[in-house]
């Protein structure tokens, strides 16, 4: 049960990251590929302040806020004037720097040995994880509300206009750089603070947590769910993290040998999904024009179709893997099993 709560808490963290990225990429058009840099910075800063300086959670959190504000501002100042491709490369480089410094600065981060233990803000015995989970729920719900309201506000329209055509926007008297700076820095600080909040969940941090696949998981969730829709990030995180890291890991009976394969299989499928979405449905599952009221019915119909597709997929797989001579003969007149070669066309 404790592990289940841990997974759900982690899902909330990813949800928060995806919402912040939605503001940066979905609304402003800033391709931040350094999500793990901001998140890792916040998480490690929390650990370092607590363990090395022996500060309380609250004091450390305040310090992390100040630090992340400064770093986010610096990164914003460096990358926001660049064209999208350069922004993407620069933010990846930032994340790589964070990951490298965590390994090299042993005096601070303990390097590859790892750093811990990070405390929760307060301990109330066995209920601590649940209380913390409730706090995370409140925070992420708050973030989602903010994004929903942002979409309906004049500011939201301004952000979309900047994403669509920044130069045109400036020619109408909008201070586009300042607006971009404000929302980019805001969202980046949110990512850092989500990192700070993840530190107590993990309790013990090692550099191999700061890997590009974190960034990638957030991106695939956003792009899959619908990068420009207010609820796209949420839908995407439930479909990716919710299915792979919670449903399958909790309920699917996986043998220990297979359990090693699952994370790799997950990233393989994420990559495949991302490619398919970008090529065949660039808006993602929720198109930007889907009204929020219709989202739920879309999800239901989407779930039914994908369930049906998965069922038929399993059937074909069973038919091709263990062809039972008798039944396959019976089926022959009305089913044409798909050839593996068909995929290529």
């Amino acid at each position, binding site marked *: 049960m404790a592990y289940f709560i841990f997974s759900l808490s982690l899902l909330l963290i990813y949800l928060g990251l995806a919402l912040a990225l939605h503001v940066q990429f979905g609304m402003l058009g800033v391709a931040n590929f350094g999500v793990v840099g901001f998140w890792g910075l916040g998480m490690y800063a929390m650990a370092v302040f607590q363990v090395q300086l022996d500060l309380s959670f609250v004091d450390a959190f305040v310090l992390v806020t100040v630090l992340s504000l400064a770093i986010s501002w610096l990164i914003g100042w460096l*990358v926001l004037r*660049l064209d999208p491709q350069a922004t993407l490369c620069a933010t990846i480089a930032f994340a790589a720097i964070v990951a490298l410094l965590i390994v090299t600065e042993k005096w601070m981060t303990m390097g590859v040995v790892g750093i811990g233990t990070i405390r929760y803000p307060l301990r109330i015995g066995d209920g601590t994880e649940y209380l913390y989970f409730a706090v995370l729920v409140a925070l992420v719900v708050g973030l989602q509300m903010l994004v929903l309201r942002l979409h309906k506000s004049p500011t939201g329209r301004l952000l979309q206009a900047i994403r669509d055509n920044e130069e045109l926007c400036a020619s109408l008297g909008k201070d586009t750089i300042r607006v971009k700076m404000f929302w980019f820095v805001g969202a980046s600080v949110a990512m850092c603070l989500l990192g700070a909040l993840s530190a107590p969940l993990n309790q013990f941090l090692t550099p191999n947590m700061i890997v590009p696949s974190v960034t990638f998981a957030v991106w695939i969730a956003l792009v899959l769910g619908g990068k420009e829709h207010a609820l796209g990030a949420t839908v995407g995180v439930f479909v990716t993290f919710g299915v792979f890291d919670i449903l399958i890991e909790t309920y699917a009976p996986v043998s220990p040998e297979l359990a090693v394969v699952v994370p790799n299989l997950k*990233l393989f499928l994420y990559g495949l999904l*991302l490619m398919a979405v970008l*090529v065949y449905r660039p808006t993602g599952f929720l198109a930007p024009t889907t009204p929020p009221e219709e989202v739920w019915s879309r999800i239901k119909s989407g779930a039914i179709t994908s369930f049906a597709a998965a069922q038929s997929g399993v059937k074909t797989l069973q038919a091709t893997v263990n062809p039972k001579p008798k039944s396959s003969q019976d089926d022959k007149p009305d089913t044409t099993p798909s050839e593996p070669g068909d995929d290529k066309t």
Partner: protein
Amino acid sequence: MIEGEQFLSFIIDAIFIGVLQASPLILAAMGFTLIYYLNGFINFGYGEGITYGAYFASLLNLTFGFSFYVSILPAALMTGGLSVLTYLYVFRPAIQRGVKPSELIILSVGLSFVLRYGLILVVGAENVFLDEPPIAFFTFAGTGATSLQFIALILVFTFAFNLYWVIYHTGFGEKVRGLADNPDLAQVSGINPHRVSIYVWFIAGSAAGLAGIFQGVFALVNPLMGWNLILITVMVSIIGGVGSVRGALFAAVVAGILTAAITLITKPLYAEVALLAAFIVILWRRGPKVV
């Protein structure tokens, strides 16, 4: 006087180690640049060509028992073929469907995950060591190097200069440059962009494969080697002025020497941090101009 001598030997060491280390980087950067130059987007999937090159070599070298030197060419060509396949079945359809360059980068990251974790699913994530041929050890101006490193260096520079010559002094190179500079005009004048692209992706892929093979034999082979090298490759290409094979060649050599120099003073990881930071600052200095 002694200080001066020490400084001189430091410089020689840096240049020597830098050039040796840079040889895979030079190949990777040139191939990467070629694709960027022609198709106008940053292809992170290119890094997997490096990984696959090393694994193709290990397949031939370890599984089928060919000598390392025999494995080099077929492994590089196989990687070139893989690169053409990614162009034909991933990037070309995407470009035709109107996917924008900034989204093509994300697509290429997706492809790189598919290739990398697909590979891990098949061969596992353990380090692989190529079966090196017997190695002779040379000293040159007080610095040591192995015969393997020398061969790598010679091969890499042969490849680099041939590529340079092809791009700048042949009809094919003229077509590539024409397509890159003005695709519409080039097509009107009868250049088949599809065929040229296939050749370019093949050459670039082979370069990535070669880079991977040498990176693999210098150190070790693992599924993350391509991803680790691609960031530096992208950096080097952009610093060298993406779109110019000349610039990439030059920048790769300089980056190699610089890395070696910083490494000699501090730890190698700091060298990477310094390069990455320099990269961000250079991008910032360039401002909103295209990469």
